[in-house]
């Protein structure tokens, strides 16, 4: 991957390092969000940054998401590079007017006379150490992917998280940077030297010839677990992590499907209207004559996330579900 010294750090530490590097490298970069300063953020992502860079550059804000989004854009338009944390992505819905109608459109509507280098960082998803319920565990990437003018990133490893956040902050367009809250403690190798992972480039997390699985975020790990299990059964699964949900790296996906002739799409979000539907349709449009089986989709149930742990456990696909779907596909039962 990258030359230089690698060490194991967590997904959370990787994001923290990316913010620290960006603050140090560029005086235009500043952070804003609820409790991100002295407290270090609800999940501790910004811990230590207030001490290092001060309250001017790591700004605590009131609880007023739409105002925060508007202020962040205003700062971006006047030459700053703000990184806004929304404590839970579920709360970003209060700021969608600013994000959808202003962030996404301002550069276009002013004919390119301004840029909008603003990043929204926010945790989404469930599957964390405690049940978070209907208002704290949603996966809302499809909302943002739908809006022209926004880029959407969803890393699944510490390495990708750090490199993609550095690229997102350097980008002159609004980027929605989605963090999976159940992965903050996941460890992985990350170089000490600064690096970026370009937006819009997928990663083949595991190579295989029999079936392509596309999954982002936590689902990518479940797909990899399923692939490891199936390898013992003689089924070679290729796992692709799009990493950037928009713009989507179609070429990597298409090349894989043209090789394996089968696709399994996994998303944590509810089934209806999700990114997996978009992936599947693009595969049909570009790879129809290469498909040797129906495309299979695994997704969250179309329900609000239950608080009861026993019910929550049934909402999302897990690695045994993915493995079973692949077995059936390869055995020509689907």
């Amino acid at each position: 991957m990258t030359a230089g010294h690698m060490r194991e750090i967590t997904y959370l530490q990787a994001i923290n390092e990316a913010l620290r590097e960006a603050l140090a490298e560029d005086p235009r970069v500043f952070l804003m969000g609820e409790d991100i300063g002295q407290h270090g953020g609800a999940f501790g992502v910004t811990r230590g940054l207030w001490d290092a860079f001060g309250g001017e550059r790591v700004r605590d804000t009131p609880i007023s998401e739409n105002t925060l989004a508007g202020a962040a854009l205003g700062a971006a338009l006047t030459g700053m590079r703000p990184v806004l944390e929304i404590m839970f992505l579920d709360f970003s819905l209060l700021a969608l007017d600013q994000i959808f109608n202003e962030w996404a459109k301002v550069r276009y509507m002013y004919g390119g006379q301004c840029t909008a280098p603003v990043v929204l960082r926010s945790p989404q998803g469930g599957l964390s150490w405690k049940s978070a319920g209907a208002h704290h565990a949603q996966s809302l990437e499809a909302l943002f992917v739908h809006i022209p003018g926004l880029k959407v990133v969803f890393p699944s490893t510490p390495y990708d998280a750090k490199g993609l956040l550095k690229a997102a902050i350097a980008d002159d367009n609004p980027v929605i940077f989605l963090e999976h809250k159940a992965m903050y403690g996941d460890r992985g190798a990350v170089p000490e030297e600064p690096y970026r992972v370009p937006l819009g480039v997928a990663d083949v997390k595991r190579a295989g010839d029999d079936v392509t699985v596309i999954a982002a975020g936590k689902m990518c790990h479940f797909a990899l677990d399923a692939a490891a299990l199936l390898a013992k059964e003689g089924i070679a699964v290729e796992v692709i992590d799009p990493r950037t949900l928009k713009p989507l790296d179609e070429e990597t996906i298409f090349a894989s499907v043209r090789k394996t002739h089968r696709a399994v799409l996994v998303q944590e979000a509810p089934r209806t209207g999700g990114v997996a539907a978009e992936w599947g349709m693009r595969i049909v449009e570009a790879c129809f004559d290469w498909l040797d089986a129906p495309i299979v989709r695994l997704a969250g149930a179309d329900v609000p996330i239950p608080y009861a742990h026993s019910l929550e456990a049934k909402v999302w696909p897990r690695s045994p579900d993915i493995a079973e779907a692949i077995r059936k596909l390869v055995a020509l039962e689907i």
Partner: protein
Amino acid sequence: MLEITLPKLTHDMQTGAFVQWYKREGDAVKRGDALYAVETDKATVDVEAEAGGVLTGVLARPGDEIAIGQVLAYLAAPGETIETTGRVPGPGAGGRVVATPLARRVAREAGVDLRQVRGSGPHGRIVRADVLRVRRVQTTPAVGAADAPGADSDYEVVARSRVQAQTAARLTRMWQESPLYILDLDADMTEAIRWREKTGRARSFTTLLVKVAAAALENVPQVNSLWIDGELRRHRAVNVGVAIATPSGVIVPVIHDANQLTAQQIQARLAELRERAGAGRLMPSDLGGGTFTVTNLGMYGVDAFAAVINPPQVAILACGRIVETPVARHREVVIRPLLRLRLTVDHRALDGAEAAPFLVAVKDLLENPYRLI
């Protein structure tokens, strides 16, 4: 809702031909009722219902080739419907070919007729591996490949393209129906060879044959006929077909109004047809309307051969290579380049006295090409 599937009725049984249902969709069925008849490799047998219910979602139709375990229909509890269980009749119901997009593409490229392929997927869906199994003889199977033919078999079934299958059917019918006879005549090709050298070999002998045959057909028009439904239809247009070998079989593109074209035009048209045939891009109009066919295996080293008539035409002219042959001329033996012309004729349409002048006209024109060119 119970699935009614085809049981294994004899030891060797793999499939059965569905004969008929004894119950209709919606009929109440009791356990033990005779439900349907199926023809096995041994006999036609009646199969009884193993449970009671309402016959629903009928998939099997008379004449269907059905694999063991394939769903024929469902037995529903009273009030239960296909809709309530979410079951729908299989996509193959009604004889439609069900194949994955990839299987369709592979079959198209390999010239495999999907109707001849048994699908191994759900509801008999054809997947790529099924097509490759049929096509396997056309490619060298990789050692140990999943699609390689069974090593225990001492022969392999050679896949036939649709063109080859149709050619076989048409020519078999022609051979069975038609009383054929054959006329032979040698043409001295001295002048023809000289003519070809003068063109710098830019013209082929096939071009000359088409040109000559077209002129002879004009002179002896009874050969320029089709035999259809017992009628002899003499055609006004002279449309000469030329047999061309392609990877997917012999095809006969047609040079329309060949009697009105120059050798140069015929040569150009032949080149165009060959190119399109090689690319598999012939149009229906390139293949239709032929009133006579010439076929030339000279380039394959054959001295002479008898061709089978391309129905509904009534004759076909076949020739092999030009052979240096000792012949008597003016009481002396000389060496001459001879081409054996062999005309196969359908006696229903033409008798020998009608066909012979045509072959003589072809010979005369080949021996004196400057009359034409």
